[in-house]
């Protein structure tokens, strides 16, 4: 199934009408160029020149820059090198008490404060976009949720040289 660039732009924007999503984007087989098209669109939209190697979420990318591979926010803030846990460089708000969680959902529909359970919100320390939310018991380690194998992906799966040549 081939999808054109404008459809992928709308998919990224969340504006693709349901009939097109259902008929052109969801069914198998998928567009084999999807990754390349997605990267091309994302690269056009950011205000910096570092090459995007893999998107981590709506506001975060692994990029190839002057200092090697880093995790970079859409606003331009660099958090850490690509192999580190970017969350450790964020700002965090941990909601645990009733008055803190009550802003999110009504009473009785949030964790019982007697269970020391936290809603952890991770913000970009530059633009304060919300990058991730975790629901974990107090004392739970901050997991590195994704360690992409970038070299294998480009060289073996796409059969292309890695864009940064590392």
């Amino acid at each position, binding site marked *: 199934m081939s999808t054109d660039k404008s459809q992928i732009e709308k*998919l*990224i924007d*969340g504006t*693709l009408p349901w009939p097109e*999503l259902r008929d052109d984007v969801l069914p*198998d087989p*998928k567009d084999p160029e*999807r*990754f390349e*098209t*997605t*990267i091309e669109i994302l690269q056009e939209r950011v205000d910096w020149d570092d090459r995007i190697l*893999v*998107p*981590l*979420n*709506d*506001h975060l990318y692994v990029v190839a820059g002057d200092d090697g591979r880093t995790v970079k926010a859409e606003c331009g803030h660099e958090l850490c090198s690509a192999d580190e846990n970017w969350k*450790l460089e*964020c*700002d*965090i*708000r*941990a909601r645990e008490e009733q008055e803190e969680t009550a*802003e*999110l*959902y*009504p*009473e*009785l*529909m*949030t*964790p*019982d404060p*007697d*269970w*020391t*359970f936290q*809603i952890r919100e991770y913000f970009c*320390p530059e633009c*304060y976009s*919300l990058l*991730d*939310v975790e*629901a974990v*018991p*107090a*004392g739970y*380690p*901050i*997991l*590195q*949720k*994704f*360690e*992409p*194998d970038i070299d294998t*992906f480009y060289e*073996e*799966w796409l059969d292309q040289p890695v864009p940064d040549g590392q």
Partner: protein
Amino acid sequence: MSQEPETTQGIASDEYDRVEPPIGWDGQTLQEMLDESEQLLEDTGRYHGRERLEMKEDEPFQYERMFSRLRGALVNARETALHISASAIVREIGELAFQLYTPEGDCIATSTGIIVHVHTGSLAIKYMIEEGYEHGRTIQPGDIFCNNDNDLGNVHTADVHTLIPIFYDDELIAWADGVTHEVDIGGSTRGHDQLASTTRYEDGLYATCEKIGENDEVYQDWRDRAERGTRTPMFWDLDEKCRVAGAHMIREALTDLVDEVGVERYKEFTREAIEEGRQTLESRVQERLFPGTYRDASFMPVPFKQEGWNPVSQKDMLNHLPVEMEVGGDGGLSLDMTGASPPGPHPYNCSEGSMQGGLWVSLTQCLLHDGKVNDGSYFAVDANFPEGSVVNPQDPSLSYHTAWGSIMPTYQAVWKNISRAFFARGFREEVNTGYSESGDTMQGGGFNEVTDEYFPIAPFDLSCQGMGASASRDGLDYAYTMWNPETDMGDIEEWELIEQGLPFLSRHIKPNTAGHGKYRGGSGWETLRVVDRSYDMSLYKHVRPGVTNSTSGMHGGYPQATNYSVRVHNTDLEEQFEDAEYPISDKVPGDLEEDVDGDVVRTERGIYFPTTFENHDLVYYHMGGGPGYGDPLDRPFDLLKEDLEKEIYTPDIVENVYGVVGNLDEEEREFEIDHDATEERREEIREQRREESQSVRSFIDEERERLVEGDLSDPARRMYSGVFDRGDDWCDDFREFWDLPENFEINMG
């Protein structure tokens, strides 16, 4: 030719000819076939060493036709058998499935329905082979076997399998397996997913790969035992007939196929079909995912301190369900749950086969929508469910009655891991942040005042939950469940016919259940029911999670709301009914009290244990929403306006989380945004994020101190203590993260 008994006017009158071992292919015993299969897989990495799919390549039309005929036979058996004879759960929402296995127990194809069972029947067959049934108990044409022993190949106790061997010229060529979900299994309390059960000895009726019939007829003593051992003998009988009839339909269809294509071609086809399933998964991994390591964790709260019956279970527990996945450069997929909690005195213990089933039901919804869905995908995934943990206890004495309490939270983490890979690859439409876990809403039963007949309470409208958001749109509202994606709510009238003493007063969207985000999770819904013209009515509620979340959102989206319980005893409904009035909602917790007088019992827990209800008592339950995706401040205003007008959220919550302010006309359900106030509120939220957050490094210092001082709740401490007792590598990672000494441990003292 197949063996068939002599018949008189279509009724079996003579016995089948007995077969002597070996009954496997080409003079092999079943054990020899199983050993050879496992060895070839280990040596070559391919099912039965099939590197090239010769039949598929050389005779593609014949090959695909054979698969379609088998698949069609299984679906046909399901659709037909449930209309021949089936209980309400099975008929209304299709809680059944049929599978076809090779002689050594590998799934070739499955029907639609509760496809979680693709691998459970496999384990039961392999158990019978390894225990020497071929030579001792014997496996004969016309035999009927039954299994619901979770430790040997089942998901939970109320799922009952009927397995029949299929012979052709004295050779065993396949097994057909039919499984249905029973509304009652004769456990210590009424219901099909018990809450109070803490050991096997409270779970109810068990059949352990038991021969329950021969010459196509179920033994009289088995029928008597099962019907006397369950509270709903008519439903049991209907479902057993359904399973046997479906399995016999499959046998007939397979025999016709083999008559037509020849047994040797059929045999080769089965090898290739399973290997194709394995290869399909590997190629799909390379096509859709991104190589690397993925981690997530789920949590299952077990709030039994105040509710538990058995003294050993009277504590608040929290089960740890971590999932690390590896997408290998070769297209391989591995899953590791090292660090999972130990089993416990609760019904959420889960066998390895159940976890494999959960993996399978998940993969077929995200990676394997098409292709040959069979045990090939099982062989393609390297899964580690640590022995002795809650997800593979290897202990038949435990209760496995409600294993879904471990499966459902675990696969929230699996779906998030796979979704991160979809996102990285650009397939945003395939991202799914998870789902609302169905729990089992209301269970129990009572007696009809007029007829003195027992009626069960087991509504399966719970199969319509909120789905998680994707990275391109909102989650599906109140129309999804992960364990059987084809189910629907069923008809209220049908449930009321069965659940005679608990008519519905209302169904309504449950506001504020959907997880927040740029794309919100699907919404949940609520219902109110009243006890009517009944006696000896005992009910329990089982909606999870209550006191904590079990999962997170994704990429800035929030987890969905947690669940709670409310019920009202000694109500004034009798008087209200006389005036044609009654309550219809607890939209915002506390609303109900305004519309009914009585003894209201509200708790943060989504559960309560079996409780006696009297006529005109009020019963409430609600279904949850799905997790959200992305920063809520990125959600478009027009979608929020729609959310408010549809009552997905209430205005106060939208103002707090999304920063959208305006006026809602409650009667017309129209919302008008106040753009100036909205801009002001959103700037305030951004400012709050700056002011109320701290660096993660300083947070880590504070949390570390807290750990050292032991400033944790009992259930959190109990969770860490259980994992430390098991001593998995996870504990080393924990100490390393928090920079704690090698001998640091958390225990309950």
